[in-house]
C-alpha cells in the first residue's frame, strides 16, 4: 500500500500535479478497490485537473463527460445511428435482399458509443471524468448507479455490455445541489480545499517555470490573503497561475514596487465587476501593505 501511494504520488508529480499524501492515499484506494472517486471542493481548486493528471500519470486515455441540466443517455451512454440504419435498409432493399432479422440493424455496427460506453469498452483502464455531476438531473444520476457499481450497461436491443477493463472513474461536484445518498455510497470521497502557502508556491514554481522566487512568494501571499477577505468569487489555483504568468511576462520583480501594475492585472484574479471595483479603489494596496 505504502509503495502504491508513493507510486501514485510520483506519477502525479511527473504529470505536473502537486498532491499531498492524503490525496495520493485516496487515489491509491481508487486503483486498489476499483471504486469511483467523488471529489468535492470550491471551483478552481484543481478537481478536473486531478483527473487529467491521473490520465497523464498512468498513460491512460482520458474520457470526459461534462454534465449539464438535461443530459440524457443518448449523449452520455449510446445512441443508434439512425441515418446509417435507414441507409442499410434501403441498400438491402435495392439489392433485393432485405436484412434477415432485426439483429442486423440493431448490432454494434450501428451503435454510437458515448463517453460511458467508450470507457467500459476500452481494453486498457481509461480515466473516466464525470465533470460537475451536480449539474446533471436526478434521473441521470440514478442511471449512473448501474454503471458505477457493476461497470456494465444494459442496451435493450443487444443485451448487457460488460466492461472489458474497469475504468478509473473520477466524479467532480461543486455542490450546487445535493447529490443522492445512493451515488455517494458507491464512491470514495475526497474534499479538495484551497492549497496552503507552501503547496501553492510549489504549484506556481512547477507550472510557471522561470518565475523569480521572491515574486512567486509575493504572488501566492497576495492570493492567500485575498482568499481570507470578503469577495464575491474567491480566486482559485488557475487564477493564481494566470496572474503569475502575466506578471512574469511583464517582467515584474516585486509586487510592492509595482502597485499600479498589480491593480491593472487584477482581472486575472477577480472575476466579478463588484470585486474588481473594490480592489482597484484601494483595497489591493492594503493587501500589498499586509504582505510587504
Amino acid at each position, binding site marked *: 500500500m505504502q509503495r502504491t501511494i508513493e507510486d501514485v504520488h510520483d506519477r502525479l508529480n511527473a504529470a505536473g500535479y502537486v498532491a499531498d499524501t492524503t490525496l495520493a492515499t485516496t487515489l491509491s484506494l481508487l486503483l486498489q478497490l476499483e471504486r469511483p472517486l467523488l471529489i468535492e471542493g470550491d471551483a478552481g481548486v484543481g478537481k478536473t485537473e486531478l483527473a487529467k493528471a491521473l490520465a497523464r500519470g498512468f498513460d491512460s486515455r482520458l474520457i470526459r463527460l461534462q454534465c449539464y441540466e438535461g443530459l440524457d443517455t443518448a449523449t452520455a451512454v449510446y445512441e443508434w445511428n439512425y441515418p446509417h440504419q435507414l441507409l442499410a435498409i434501403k441498400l438491402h432493399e435495392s439489392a433485393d435482399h432485405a436484412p434477415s432479422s432485426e439483429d442486423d440493424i440493431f448490432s454494434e455496427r450501428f451503435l454510437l458509443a458515448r463517453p460511458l460506453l467508450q470507457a467500459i469498452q476500452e481494453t486498457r483502464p481509461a480515466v473516466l471524468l464525470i465533470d460537475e455531476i451536480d449539474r446533471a438531473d436526478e434521473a441521470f444520476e440514478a442511471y449512473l448507479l448501474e454503471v458505477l457499481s457493476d461497470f456494465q450497461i444494459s442496451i435493450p436491443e443487444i443485451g448487457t455490455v460488460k466492461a472489458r477493463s474497469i475504468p478509473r472513474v473520477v466524479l467532480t461536484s461543486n455542490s450546487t445541489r*445535493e447529490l443522492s445518498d445512493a451515488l455517494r455510497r458507491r464512491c470514495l470521497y475526497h474534499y479538495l480545499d484551497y492549497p496552503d502557502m507552501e503547496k501553492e508556491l510549489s504549484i506556481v514554481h512547477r507550472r510557471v517555470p522561470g518565475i523569480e522566487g521572491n515574486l512567486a512568494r509575493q504572488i501566492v501571499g497576495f492570493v492567500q490573503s485575498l482568499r481570507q477577505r470578503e469577495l464575491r468569487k474567491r480566486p482559485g489555483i488557475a487564477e493564481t497561475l494566470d496572474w503569475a504568468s502575466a506578471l512574469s511576462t511583464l517582467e515584474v520583480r516585486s509586487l510592492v514596487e509595482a502597485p499600479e501594475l498589480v491593480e491593472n492585472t487584477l482581472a486575472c484574479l477577480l472575476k466579478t465587476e463588484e470585486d474588481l471595483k473594490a480592489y482597484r479603489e484601494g483595497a489591493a494596496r492594503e493587501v500589498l501593505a499586509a504582505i510587504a
Partner: protein
Amino acid sequence: MAGTNPSRQIASFVRHLRHEGFDVGIRETADALRVAGNQNLLDNRLLCSCLRGLCCRDRSDWHRFEEIFQAFWFPQSVAVREDAAARIDPRIGQLRRGGVTGIAGASQSDEELVRGGGAGRQRTLARADFRFLTDLLGQREMEELAGRLALRIRRRATRRRRERYCGRVVHMRGTFRRSLATGGLPLHLRYLAPRLELPRLVLLQDVSHSMAGYSPLLTRFARGLMRVFPRSEAFVFHTQLYRVSNLYRETDVLELRRRLEQYQHLWLGGTQIAESLRRFQELYASRFANRQCLVLIMSDGFDTDDPHDLAKQLTLLRERVRQVVWINPMLGRRDAANEVNGDVTRGLAALVDFVAPGHSLEGLETVAAYLAQHC
C-alpha cells in the same frame, strides 16, 4: 491500536462511525479490512487517510472524521486536549463527548424530543425546536441539515418540465390533445423541455432579539436557498434594513462565521417590520421585486410598529411580486408567547400566500415543498 485483534478493532471503528451518523455499511467494513490487510497498521496517519476516503460521504463527514478517528484510537490524547480546552470554555468538553444535553428552559417533552443519538438522531433533530438546542454540535448538525434541505429544492424544481414545440422528449398528453384536431392522427408532436430558469427569490430575515434562538438555523436555510436560486437577494432587518446577499453567498461555513463576527451590528436589535418593509420597497423593490419574484419573510411577527402599517406594507408588496411566503418560528410553539402571537399569525395569513412554521427542520420542509411546487 495494536493491542487486540486489528480486524475486530477496524470493524468496531466502522460501527462507531455509523453511530456517529456516517452512512457506512458492510461494504465499507469489508473494504476497510481489505485495505488494512495490505498495509502497515502501525502507521495511524495512513490508516486515517484510507478510512477517511472510504467512509466519508460529504464535506461535513470529511471535516469531522479526523477528530472522531483520534477520539476512537487515541482517547487519552484527546482527553488531555479536552481538559486543556475545557479550562477555557466548559462547553467544549460537553460538545466533544457528543449527545444533546443541557437544554435550558425546555419542557420535559421538548427535552426528550431533542435528546437522542445513533440511527434515529437525524429524524429526532428534524422535529426538535432549535431554541432548545444549546449543544453546539447539535446546532451545527441542524444548520447543516437546513442547508441540505434548501439544496433539495433545486432537484425538485428543475425536475418539472414545460411543454414546448421542439425538444427530445415527446409530451404524450400534449400530443394526444393536439391530435384531436386531426381525427386522432398525431401529425403535430409536442415536446417536453426542462425548465431552465428559476425565479428570483428575495429573502427578508428578521434578526432582532426575539429571533436570536432561530437565526442560526434560518441563516443556514437562507444560504442554501441563495445557492439554489442564483439570482436571489438577501436582506436582514431589525430596526434597520441591510443587504447581505454577498455575505450569504459565502460557501465556506468557517469563513462565513468569521465574517458574521465582523457584522455583529446587523444582529440583535428591536423590531420594526413595517418600517423595514417600507425601506425595502423604497430602496430595492424597483431592482429586485417584480411579478416573477418570490418574497420570503422570516420573522416571528413581533413588531413595534403599528399593525396597520405592517398590513399596508404587506399588501403593497404582494401587489408587486408573484408570491409572499412568511416563515414564522412561533407557529410551532405551544406556549403562552404563541397565544399572543396567534392573532398576529391569523392576521398575516390573510395578507400573504403561505405561512409556515420555521422553528424546526420539519417546518422548513413544508416551505421547501411549497417552493418546489411554485417555482
